[in-house]
């Protein structure tokens, strides 16, 4: 596989702190997913957890949407608690198109598209996100059985400079048509 390696983030697992992060993250993602499934059931008007899980496995759009939203909220909250430099977390629509967005859109993957606004970008946050991503995959696979799933998290980190200059993914914050939804702020 040809890949521009310099752009791929390497997770620095050697750091002792990260072990702590990882165990914490797995704990969080497990419970967050559990809660998200419950939330999904509540919203879809069923108590039968298995039905919900089945729907999620089949990629039911409504179910995935609820799961996605609730999970994103929990993840954002966790991240906010973990990294002081985070100012706000948004979810955004990765494939927003014309005004009739709902027309025949392929099923959305249960991907968390997060926009994380930090004062300053740090390696530590990158590492944390890497860990979090793996924890999410692990918990998700355990719960919903999706072998081969490698990532669940699309986290775009933007800093004050980018926000002020309206560049990078921070430009999304000025969206008129599909403005990201703020799910957490300090």
């Amino acid at each position, binding site marked *: 596989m040809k890949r521009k390696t310099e752009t791929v983030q390497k997770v620095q697992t050697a750091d002792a702190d990260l072990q702590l992060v990882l165990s914490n993250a797995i704990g969080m993602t497990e419970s967050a997913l559990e809660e998200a499934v419950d939330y999904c059931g509540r919203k879809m008007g069923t108590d039968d957890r298995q039905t919900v899980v089945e729907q999620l496995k089949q990629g039911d759009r409504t179910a995935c949407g609820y799961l996605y939203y609730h999970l994103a909220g929990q993840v954002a909250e966790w991240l906010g608690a973990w990294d002081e430099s985070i100012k706000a977390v948004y979810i955004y629509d990765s*494939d927003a198109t014309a005004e009739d967005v709902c027309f025949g859109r392929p*099923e959305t993957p249960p991907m968390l598209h997060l926009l994380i606004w930090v004062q300053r970008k740090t390696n530590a946050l990158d590492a944390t996100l890497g860990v979090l991503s793996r924890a999410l995959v692990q918990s998700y696979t355990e719960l919903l059985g999706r072998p081969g799933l490698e990532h669940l998290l699309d986290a775009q980190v933007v800093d004050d400079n980018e926000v002020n200059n309206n560049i990078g993914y921070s430009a999304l914050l000025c969206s008129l048509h599909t403005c990201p939804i703020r799910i957490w702020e300090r």
Partner: protein
Amino acid sequence: MEGQNPFLTAQAQFDKSADLLDLPQDIREILRWPMREFHFRIPLRMGDGSIKVLQGFRVQHNDARGPSKGGIRFHPNETIDTVRALAMWMTWKCAVADIPLGGGKGGVIVNPASLTTAEKEQLCRGWVSQMWHNIGPRMDVPAPDVGTTGQMMAWMMDEFSKLQGQYVPGVFTGKPVDMGGSLGRTEATGFGVIFTVREALKHLGLDPAACSAAIQGFGNVAQYAAIGFHDMLGGKVVCVSCYDLKDKKPYTYSHPDGVDPHFLQGITDQYGTIDQEKATAAGYVIEDAGAWIEKDVDVLIPAALENMVNAETAPLIHKNVKVIAEGANGPTTLEGDQLIKERGIFLIPDFLCNAGGVTTSYFEGVQNDMNYYWSRDEVLQRLDTKMTVAFHGVLDMALRQKVYMRDAAYLVAVDRVVRAMQLRGWV
């Protein structure tokens, strides 16, 4: 920034066009503000028995050319000024596409993900019960938008029909095909983009078959734009960009001989992710997400996120790019636009380029009205005619007034609305 008022921005954009057209002050005053606004509250009985009161809006910016048209948005950050701006934008969009509709937009300040399915249905019906006197196939025809779905349109249409005492499918568009929706709409926006690209290349004297394109995104619009460029124009699609589940970043998929959009569709899983292994095996090259914009191609089609062609990325556009077709809504920031203008690249502005969607919505209303439904091919054929005519309307204006295509599109739109008002004796 978040602090920027979108309605002021929309008014400023209008003022600029009004200056170019040298419109008189009284006409500007009519168009700078919506003609009608509805602010209402929708009481919602929640699953737990409590009552939640939600704020709803409907803005009818201008209906000189026909009933208002525009989506209903369920979004927690919705503001009246966003709705106003989008309603004004719809007026221009319908006018530039030359469909006999005006501009409207509606919304509810709510996060739909926080509502149960039953609550959503109740909200939809609640919205209609507040607005039903002021919407209808001859007044205002809403459609789905951010946070709303075809299912919701069906609920709303049902509620409206109940209140009217008769079946009125044409009051909402974007309905499921089985419930009065139109065929062809899945492809409509993406193919519409390609119809305009085709005309642009013709204007520039370029042979589409010898042209290459880079497409951002691989969602609905991007997929059909890629298919259209490849199948209909015979051009080479150098790359598409899409999310990759194997990494936390989107990637650009390119192929030395051009990508085969059908193949890529075939190896895209139900989650919309292209299978990297299979892609690599077929000779695809996977690059950084931002790579699409730097490609040495003739045509660039940003068909995903808003504001991604900006001060940072616009300078990276390759010197050989001749056409930018804005498949997405608002893919270009003001700064990005300035750079494109300076470079003299032929731009097909978003509200012309992706008007295939709204045109098909209009077709849906037309079919509902006559209670006769066209085949997919008929829809796409008519769409081609409409888009081609719309494109040339804008091109003529750009040539005649010697202005940038985006400005020309606004001029065409504003001028058409002004003339409608003139003919109706409003001004």
